[in-house]
């Protein structure tokens, strides 16, 4: 089989497998949520939309900052989708201008459900401590 024929015959499934492979790497090293990245991991866990982003030690409530700062607002979902240290640091830098103190703590909490005990609570997914330079 020559190269052209091989490409024509298998380029599409190979691309699909490549994208899935990249998605698994992004999940492992970049903390990407399996819902995204083209690896078909939708409906394998509760959607990241329901994760909570908590920022402590802010001068004013986070909700009012989101209303005021479009950059922060659009970044919230990115952080929930890929809650890695880099994104948390970036988020901390964005909101640090609103913070009263020298350090702020960012946490991502995710819903935790137990069907056997019918319980619903939230568990800490990741925490990042930011100190103003």
């Amino acid at each position, binding site marked *: 089989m020559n190269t052209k024929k091989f490409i*024509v015959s298998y380029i599409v499934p190979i691309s699909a497998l490549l994208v899935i492979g990249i998605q698994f790497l992004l999940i492992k090293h970049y903390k990407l949520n399996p819902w995204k990245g083209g690896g078909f991991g939708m409906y394998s866990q509760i959607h990241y939309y329901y994760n909570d982003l908590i920022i402590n030690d802010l001068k004013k409530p986070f909700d009012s900052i989101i209303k005021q700062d479009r950059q922060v607002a659009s970044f919230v979902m990115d952080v929930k989708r890929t809650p890695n240290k880099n994104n948390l640091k970036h988020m901390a830098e964005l909101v640090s201008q609103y913070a009263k103190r020298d350090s702020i703590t960012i946490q991502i909490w995710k819903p935790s459900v137990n069907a056997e005990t019918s319980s619903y609570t939230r568990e800490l997914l990741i925490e990042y401590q930011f100190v103003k330079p």
Partner: protein
Amino acid sequence: MKIFYWKSARASLSDKNMLGLTLFFLFSLTYVITTGVDHRKIKLFLFCLVLTIALLVVKNIKQPILWFLFLIILINDLICDYLVRANHHFLMVYMTISVIIFLSNSKTVDFLRNIQLVTAIILFFSGIHKLISPQFISGDFYYYMINTGSFFKPILYFNHEMNDIVLNNKNLISELGKEDPINSTTITLQNVIPNLDIISRAFAWFTIIIELIVGIAIVWKPKSVMTHLLFIMLVVGIFFTRLENGFLTLLAICGIWLSENHKITAVYLFLAIISMAFVITEIGFH
């Protein structure tokens, strides 16, 4: 006066490649409109270009240029928001590339192999993702989705008792959301039906097994009626669980291309049309 010409309907059903292609063209237009919010101007510009070229110049959706334009729109979305795009956006890219290759070399065998392998890969890996998710295999995910009314929504319109339980659960979760999570408050969800924990776990494993089996069956016996009946069961099952109609339309179109039985093709066609109508009316997800 005749109100329906069966002869021409039968002819359309027998040319399944053209039938699937026409449906895919219609869905691609629908998808561009319904996802037109992001990068609206460039998308609608290309969309108008596609429609004008299709209607006035080429008058034939078998022209690769139309599909190249769709591909540009889809790839543009991937470049701008790779990590935001839905999984079936990727499936659309694979299907569009397959169509372009098919229209360039007219080899049905290559086209069907591409569609067959891509369909199998997505179903198989969808099953794998669920299999490696502790929240899924324990049944906790389905338990949460059912008790909060995210699944089997139409039932809630008819069963007020269940609807009240769902609303109560959602209120409890919403109240908890206002608290600082550091308090580690736990709430108790009320079950919409008895023994939901066991049902959720069984349903979760059933989903994984069906997805893996259909994925393997499409590679192993793509022409078998049994494979297609299972695939149809999966599509209908997803339809009744959650209105993911964009994804379902694409699966049904793939089904049309892969099936060799007129009756099965008619079932896929019916599912594709219904799903697409749900997307256009925004009753279902695009």
